[in-house]
C-alpha cells in the first residue's frame, strides 16, 4: 500500500510528520509561558530557585525549538508536496491565516534569539523578562493560526462553489468558522496543560532520586498547580468541542462513540471491543453521558452513524483515540487535584515515592493525549480533507515514490528524536542544579 498508492502514502507521511511536529510545537507553545511565570515569581520574591528554573528551562528550550522549527518547515512544505490539489484550493480561501502564521514565527524567532542570548546583558532583570512576552505570544499565535486552518478543514466556510468553480471567496469568514472557537481554545489549553505536567514529571523524577531538594519541590508545586488549572479548562472546553461535533460533524462524534443508531438518553461508551453485530462488548457504559456531552441534557437525541452513507463514515477506531484522550484528561485532573489538596492538608502520601511515580507518568501521558486527540480529530474527518467538499483521494499528489519519502523521513525523525533526548540529557547532567545554584550565589551568572 505504502509503495503503490500515493494517497495512502501521503496520509501516512502527513500522520508521521504532524505527530512528530506536534510534540515540539506543544513545547514551543507551552514552555515560554512556564519560563515567564517562573522568572516572574523569581524576580518578585527575589528567589534564586525560580530564576534558575527559568534559566534551565530556557536552555533546554533552545534545543527543542530548533527541532520544532525544522519539523515545522518540513510539514509546511510537505502540505504542498503531498496535497497539491488541496493547497491550490486552500490557497484561494485559507491562505490568510497561514500567511499570518509566518509573521508569528518571525516575531517569535526574533525575540527568542534576543532573549536566549542576552541573559546577562540587562542590568534590570525585568527588562529581560519583557523580551519573553513576544515569544510566548508568538508561540500562542502560531498555534492559533494553524488551528484556524485546521478548523476550516473541518467546517469549510467563506466561499461558494458554483459549477465547480470557487466564487465569492471571503478570507475573513473562512477564518472564523464554526469549529474555530472550541478547537483553538482546546489546542492552546492542552498545550499549556501538557507542558506543565511535563515539567512536573521531570521535577518529580528528580525528587524520587533525591528527596529533600528545595529547588525541585518548588518546581513540582508550581507546575502541578498550573497543570491543574489548565487540565480543568481542557475538560470544560473539551465538553464544548463535543457539543460542536454533535451539532456540525455528527458523524465524527458517532464514530468516536460507537453510537450507531439515533437515540435519546444515549450512554457514553468507553473502551470495549466491537462484535460482529456492532455491539460494544466489555465496555463501560456511562448512562446519559453521551446525550449530556452532545447537547447538555440527559434526554436529548444523538444522531447515529447509520444515518450516513457507508462511504462517508469515519473509521470506528477513532473510538480508542477519543477514549485515550478523555481517560488521560480525567486522570490528570484527579492526580493534580489530589496533589493540591494533599499538599494543603499535609497528607503524607502525596509526597511518597509511589505517588511521584504517577506524576512522572503524567508527562508522557499528557503527550499521548495530545496525539490521540489529533488522531481522533483528523482520522475522524475521513474520507474528507475538506469536509463535504474535497476528499483525501482527490487532494493527494499523483507522483510516485511517496512511500520512499516516508521511509526517508521516518529515519530522519528517529535521528532527531533520539538526538534531542541525548543532547538534553547531556546538557542537564553536565550542569546539575546544585552546581548552578552555587555559581549563581557566588554572583557570577553565566553558566
Amino acid at each position, binding site marked *: 500500500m505504502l509503495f503503490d498508492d500515493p494517497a495512502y502514502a501521503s496520509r501516512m507521511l502527513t500522520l508521521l510528520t504532524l505527530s512528530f511536529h506536534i510534540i515540539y510545537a506543544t513545547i514551543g507553545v507551552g514552555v515560554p509561558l512556564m519560563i515567564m511565570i517562573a522568572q516572574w515569581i523569581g524576580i518578585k520574591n527575589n528567589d534564586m530557585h525560580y530564576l534558575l528554573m527559568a534559566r534551565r528551562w530556557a536552555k533546554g528550550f533552545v534545543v527543542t525549538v530548533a527541532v520544532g522549527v*525544522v519539523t515545522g518547515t518540513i510539514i509546511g*512544505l510537505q502540505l504542498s508536496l503531498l496535497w497539491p490539489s488541496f493547497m491550490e484550493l486552500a490557497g*484561494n480561501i485559507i491562505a490568510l491565516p497561514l500567511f499570518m502564521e509566518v509573521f508569528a514565527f518571525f*516575531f517569535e524567532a526574533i525575540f527568542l534569539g534576543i532573549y*536566549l542570548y542576552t541573559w546577562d546583558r540587562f542590568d534590570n532583570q525585568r527588562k529581560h523578562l519583557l523580551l519573553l512576552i513576544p515569544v510566548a505570544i508568538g508561540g500562542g499565535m502560531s498555534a492559533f493560526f494553524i488551528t484556524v486552518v485546521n478548523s476550516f478543514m473541518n467546517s469549510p466556510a467563506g466561499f461558494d462553489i458554483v459549477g465547480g468553480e470557487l466564487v465569492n471567496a471571503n478570507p475573513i469568514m473562512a477564518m472564523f468558522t464554526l469549529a474555530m472557537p472550541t478547537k483553538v481554545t482546546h489546542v492552546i489549553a492542552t498545550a499549556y496543560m501538557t507542558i506543565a505536567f511535563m515539567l512536573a514529571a521531570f521535577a518529580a523524577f528528580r525528587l524520587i532520586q533525591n528527596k529533600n531538594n528545595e529547588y525541585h519541590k518548588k518546581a513540582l508545586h508550581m507546575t502541578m498547580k498550573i497543570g491543574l488549572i489548565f487540565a480543568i479548562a481542557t475538560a470544560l472546553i473539551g465538553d464544548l468541542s463535543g457539543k460542536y461535533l454533535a451539532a456540525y460533524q455528527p458523524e465524527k462524534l458517532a464514530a468516536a462513540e460507537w453510537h450507531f443508531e439515533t437515540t435519546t438518553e444515549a450512554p457514553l461508551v468507553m473502551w470495549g471491543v466491537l462484535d460482529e453485530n456492532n455491539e460494544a462488548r466489555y465496555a463501560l457504559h456511562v448512562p446519559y453521558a453521551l446525550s449530556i456531552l452532545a447537547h447538555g441534557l440527559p434526554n436529548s437525541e444523538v444522531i447515529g452513524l447509520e444515518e450516513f452513507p457507508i462511504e462517508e463514515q469515519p473509521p470506528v477506531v477513532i473510538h480508542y483515540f477519543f477514549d485515550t484522550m478523555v481517560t488521560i484528561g480525567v486522570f490528570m485532573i484527579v492526580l493534580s487535584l489530589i496533589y493540591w489538596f494533599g499538599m494543603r492538608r499535609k497528607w503524607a502520601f502525596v509526597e511518597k515515592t509511589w505517588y511521584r511515580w504517577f506524576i512522572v507518568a503524567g508527562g508522557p501521558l499528557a503527550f499521548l493525549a495530545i496525539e490521540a486527540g489529533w488522531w481522533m480529530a483528523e482520522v475522524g474527518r475521513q474520507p474528507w480533507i475538506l469536509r463535504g467538499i474535497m476528499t483525501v483521494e482527490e487532494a493527494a499528489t499523483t507522483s510516485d515514490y511517496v512511500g520512499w519519502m516516508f521511509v526517508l523521513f521516518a529515519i530522519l525523525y528517529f535521528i532527531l528524536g533520539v538526538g534531542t533526548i541525548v543532547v538534553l540529557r547531556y546538557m542537564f547532567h553536565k550542569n546539575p542544579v546544585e552546581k548552578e545554584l552555587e555559581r549563581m550565589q557566588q554572583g557570577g551568572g553565566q553558566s
Partner: protein
Amino acid sequence: MILEIIGISVLWLFLFGYIIIGSIDYGAGFFNAYSIVTEKQHILSKIIKRYLSPVWEVTNVFFVFFFVGIVGFFPETAYYFGTILLIPGSLALILLAIRGSYYAFESYGKHGHKGYAIMYGLSGLLLPASLSIILTISEGGFVFMEDGNPVLDYNALFFSPLTWSIVVLSIVAVLYISAVFLTWYANETGDKDATDLMRKYALGWSIPLIIAAAGIIVELRFHNPFHFESLLGLWWMFAISFVLWILTVVLIWKRRNYRTAFWLLVGQFAFAFFGYGISHYPYLLYPHISIHEGFTNTAMAISLIVVFILGMALLIPSLYLLLKLFLFDKNYIKGKK
C-alpha cells in the same frame, strides 16, 4: 493587474533576502568544515556561534515566508510545483533538517563532532544546488502533462547544461557572498587571522562567480529564447550589477571599507536578481503558469497585502533590534558580552 505585480514583488524581495542571508549561513558552514579538514580549526567556529546561532531561525522564516506566500498569492503554483517537486523538495528538506539540527545539537551539546560539522558544511553546498533546480524548472521544457497531471522529466533535467550552470552559479554565489560578509564581520570582531582567511576566499571566488553568471546567459539563449530576449532588454541592470561587482572586488583587494564592500555586493546581487526576475515576467512556470492566470482572487490578494503591511510594521523594528544587539553591537561581536 497591479495586485499581482505587488504580490510577486513582495515574494521576490523576500526570496532575495533569503538568498543573501541564507548564503551567509550556508557558506559559513562550508568554510567552517573546510577549515576543520585543513586543520585550520576554529578560526571560524567562534564567529559561527556568535553570529549565526542567534539568527538562523530568522533566516529560516524567510524561506517559510516564501513558500507560504507563493501559495497564497499564486495558488496554482502549489498544484504544479507541489506535484513535480516531491523528490527534490523532500531532499532539500532533509538537508535543511541537518542544518537546523546542527544548531540544536552541536552548539549546545558536545562540542565539535568532526563528521557532523562536515555534514553541516556539505549540506550548505547541496542545499542551494537543490533549491536552484526550481529556477531551472521554471524556465520550461522539463515539465509535461500526463493524464492531466504535471510530470517532471528527470532525464532531461539531469542532462541539461542549463541545470548544471545554474547549480554551479548557486554554489559559487553562496561561497562568494558568505566570504565577503565574513570578511567584514571578522574584521569588526578584530580577528585578524579570520579576516585574512576570509578575504582570500572572497577574492578567490569572485572570478568564478562572474564566469558562472555569464555562462547562464549563454545557456538561456539556447534553452529559452523568449526569456533571453527579455533579458537583453534589461541589459543595463546587468551592466550596473557588473560595475558593482568590480567595485566590491577592488575594495576587498585594497583591504578597505569591508562594510561598503558588502553593501555593494548586496547591490550587485539585487540588480542581477531583479533583472532576472523581471525578464522572467509574466511566467512562473514557463509556459504553464503566468502570474495573471495563476493569481488568487481579489479579496484574498487584498487581505494578504494588508496583512503584509501590518506584519512589516511589526517586524522591521524587531529586526532592527536584533541586528543592533548582535550584528552591530561592538561589545557583543568582540565577544565581550
